[in-house]
């Protein structure tokens, strides 16, 4: 084992910045990053063991104990649960005779839950050894387990491939694109390199000017003006970096997965344009581990673009160099926050940084860096080809261009839609065939839970900003139990834990919601939850803590009647249940106590 790990560490130049890659290799080679492995890695990198452990323990796809030969990661996010995850989980447990969180005694398989894996339009879905299985049913689970027992390779268990590039020999995934509506910016035909060629014919300043004129704003959800971000970074000197955020972890979002499947050339082209504009020679595409199945395909796209001289040395003969490498994450939602992403790229815990300094001043390896979303870079390639003014004419005054949204949940046509900004929620619901809608979760858990009375509101940065997640929640769902509790569980898990308030409040709010669900809450608890949500929002460092109370706060505001129906209208309600408390001892002694009510 030692020799193998040493060779892995050496293949990354004994560079501690590449700890994520080293841990990923060790995990897939040995099924875990054991205590012994930590010792060897620390020794080879000449860092302390606790520093290796701090990274390993931050990401949930790295494990200390070995996972099974087949490691099943079943998505337990809201939409997966809505689509029948419980049955699928039950079948896995029954077939293997173990519970989630355990491995079979013969180490054949292990079962794990994981947060949203970006397949919300084809749930329930699971990842087994980097291979994605979608639309799972009890029968499909039986087949998978039979395949495991027959010793099949996981890839062999996939018999039907999805549409478009999903059937590409380098992907061969059963994943579907489900592109239901195309638009002029992202999905229209694009001549690869057309935007880059035009950019290289301009001054870098003019490229930024073009982006500013387009009024393009970040597509990850925050909506920061892209041109301005690039402008700040271009003013700095020395080595710089272009980072692309493909860590889409917001439950209900899956558009970057489809963009990387169908628009990878446009994405890399946009990154190269960004590099030229700010004066960077290196780019990193940070992809969430859940999309590892796209690795060979994306690497091949890069190779082809190097071959066409759209990347690499002396691009298109203009004397400009730009290289891109792909960095995989390992399961941490908070790495979608740009400074958390940078920390992760440096091989550390994905803890968001304090600001100032901003990444544009001090980013990757403390050098000026820009971090933009996949869709943003795709838009950049189009804008340079068609012009900033053309882009600015689309959409609304404050939100120009189009938006790719990922629609899932209770509707007839879940999938990917490239819409013009300014569409109302009702128009969207009509478009996706949604009836009997109780609520729409706009922009995922960190966004807003919208009631029907507000369905005339517009999808636009000035009204309802979104990174793309739209979850339709039908009337048959228990909003508090099925949605809010699931979301709070997610945030309590995914908080990096660094800020006191985010670490603690998400737990406290989750427990408070549990109390409501169990029927033990009183009216005062609701007021407390609102007050505590407010403190949390105001006192955390990054976007996670600033938005993680939204599931609680927006549902108490917008669906107060659901809460009122479940809480006691009294000053005190004991959570103590005598019958429950003595249940175990009653079973032992075989009699019931007389309880005076």
């Amino acid at each position: 084992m030692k020799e193998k790990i040493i060779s892995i560490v050496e293949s990354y130049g004994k560079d501690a910045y590449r700890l994520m890659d080293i841990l990923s290799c060790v995990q897939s080679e040995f099924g875990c990053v054991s205590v012994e492995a930590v010792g060897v890695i620390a020794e080879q990198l000449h860092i302390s063991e606790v520093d290796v452990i701090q990274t390993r323990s931050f990401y949930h796809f790295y494990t200390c104990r070995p996972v099974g030969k087949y490691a099943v990661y079943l998505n337990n996010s809201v939409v997966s649960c809505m689509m029948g995850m419980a049955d699928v989980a039950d079948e896995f447990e029954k077939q293997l005779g173990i519970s989630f969180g355990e491995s079979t005694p013969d180490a054949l398989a292990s079962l794990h839950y994981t947060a949203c894996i970006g397949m919300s339009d084809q749930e329930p879905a699971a990842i087994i050894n980097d291979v994605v299985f979608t639309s799972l049913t009890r029968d499909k689970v039986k087949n998978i387990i039979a395949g495991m027992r027959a010793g099949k390779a996981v890839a062999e268990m996939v018999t039907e491939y999805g549409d478009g590039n999903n059937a590409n020999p380098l992907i061969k995934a059963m994943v579907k694109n489900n592109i239901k509506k195309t638009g002029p910016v992202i999905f229209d035909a694009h001549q690869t390199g057309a935007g880059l060629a035009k950019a290289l014919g301009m001054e870098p300043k003019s490229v930024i000017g073009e982006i500013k004129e387009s009024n393009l704003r970040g597509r990850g959800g925050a909506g920061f003006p892209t041109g301005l971000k690039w402008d700040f970074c271009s003013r700095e000197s020395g080595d710089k970096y272009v980072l692309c955020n493909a860590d889409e972890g917001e439950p209900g979002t899956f558009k970057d997965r489809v963009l990387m499947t169908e628009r990878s050339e446009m994405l890399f082209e946009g990154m190269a344009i960004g590099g030229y504009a700010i004066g960077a020679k290196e780019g990193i595409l940070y992809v969430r581990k859940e999309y590892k199945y796209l690795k060979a395909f994306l690497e091949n796209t890069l190779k082809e673009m190097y071959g066409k001289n759209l990347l690499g040395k002396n691009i298109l003969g203009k004397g400009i160099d730009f290289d891109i490498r792909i960095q995989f994450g390992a399961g941490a939602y908070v790495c979608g926050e740009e400074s958390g992403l940078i920390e992760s790229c440096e091989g550390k815990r994905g803890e968001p940084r304090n600001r100032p300094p901003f990444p544009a001043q001090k980013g990757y390896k403390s050098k000026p860096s820009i971090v933009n979303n996949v869709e943003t870079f795709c838009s950049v390639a189009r804008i340079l080809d068609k012009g900033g003014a053309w882009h600015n004419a689309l959409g609304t005054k404050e939100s120009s261009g189009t938006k790719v949204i990922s629609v899932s949940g209770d509707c007839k046509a879940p999938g990917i839609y490239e819409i013009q900004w300014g569409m109302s929620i009702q128009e969207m619901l009509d478009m996706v065939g949604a009836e009997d809608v109780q609520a729409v979760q706009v922009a995922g858990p960190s966004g807003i839970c919208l009631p029907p009375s507000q369905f005339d509101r517009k999808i636009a940065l000035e009204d309802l900003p979104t990174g793309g997640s739209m979850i339709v929640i039908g009337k048959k769902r228990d909003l508090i139990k099925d949605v809010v509790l699931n979301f709070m569980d997610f945030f309590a898990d995914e908080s990096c834990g660094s800020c006191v308030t985010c670490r603690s409040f998400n737990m406290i709010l989750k427990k408070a919601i549990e109390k409501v669900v169990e029927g033990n809450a009183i009216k005062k608890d609701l007021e407390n939850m609102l007050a505590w949500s407010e403190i949390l929002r105001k006192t955390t460092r990054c976007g996670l803590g600033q938005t993680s109370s939204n599931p609680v706060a927006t549902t108490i505001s917008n669906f107060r009647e659901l809460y009122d129906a479940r809480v006691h209208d009294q000053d005190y309600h004991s959570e103590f249940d005598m019958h429950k408390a003595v249940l175990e001892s009653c079973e032992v002694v075989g009699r019931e106590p007389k309880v005076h009510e």
Partner: protein
Amino acid sequence: MSETVKFTIDGKECAGTKGQCIVDAATDNGIYIPVLCHMRDVVPAGSCRICTVNVNGRKMAACTTPVEDGMVVENNTPELTDIRKAIVEMLFVEGNHFCPACEKSGNCDLQGLGYKYQMMVPRFPYAFERRDIDATTPKIYLERNRCIFCKRCVRMIKDSEGRSIFAFKGRGKTLQINIDRKLAATMSDELAQKAMDICPVGCILKKEVGFKDPIGSRKYDKKPIGSDIENIHQ
């Protein structure tokens, strides 16, 4: 010579140097902003959030925000006092803190702030988390029940080659402070003492020296936390 900037805290005219954080600048002007993770001249962690102030109307951590000319800082408002009290309460319910039996009692910043904000019964439910003590290293007890994740030890205590002796493990609800057994074995008495001294609570304890200061001569026995700073200019 570094550039001087002028700003106000709760209406009081203050002066500081450009790039200095609000906490340090306030201290130099005789104004106490409570801190648990911050230490002067150490890279700020910005993690305890108790130094939250209003900067030009927005909530900011005073340890990570540099002072600027014309900045209007509010440090003493009912809302901020309530937020700080909530954070103290939160730390008390999150860990397992039994002040009377703690070696750091009287010298503990968290306890000091509990008194300052007159915490009686925390408004949050206790978590009662099980946290294991690590006593495997020769010089240090790591009493995790009391850790508040300030990262002072993570940032400041390194071995002779600059390697971390302390680091976080896990995240969110599973977060814990971790000590490197191999490197901790090489710690000198001075370094172990420093680790205990910078720990704002009773999590890092030097072995064999418990309860050294008698009651009455401990740090906060006779004067409340922060009073030394507030008295500088009086």
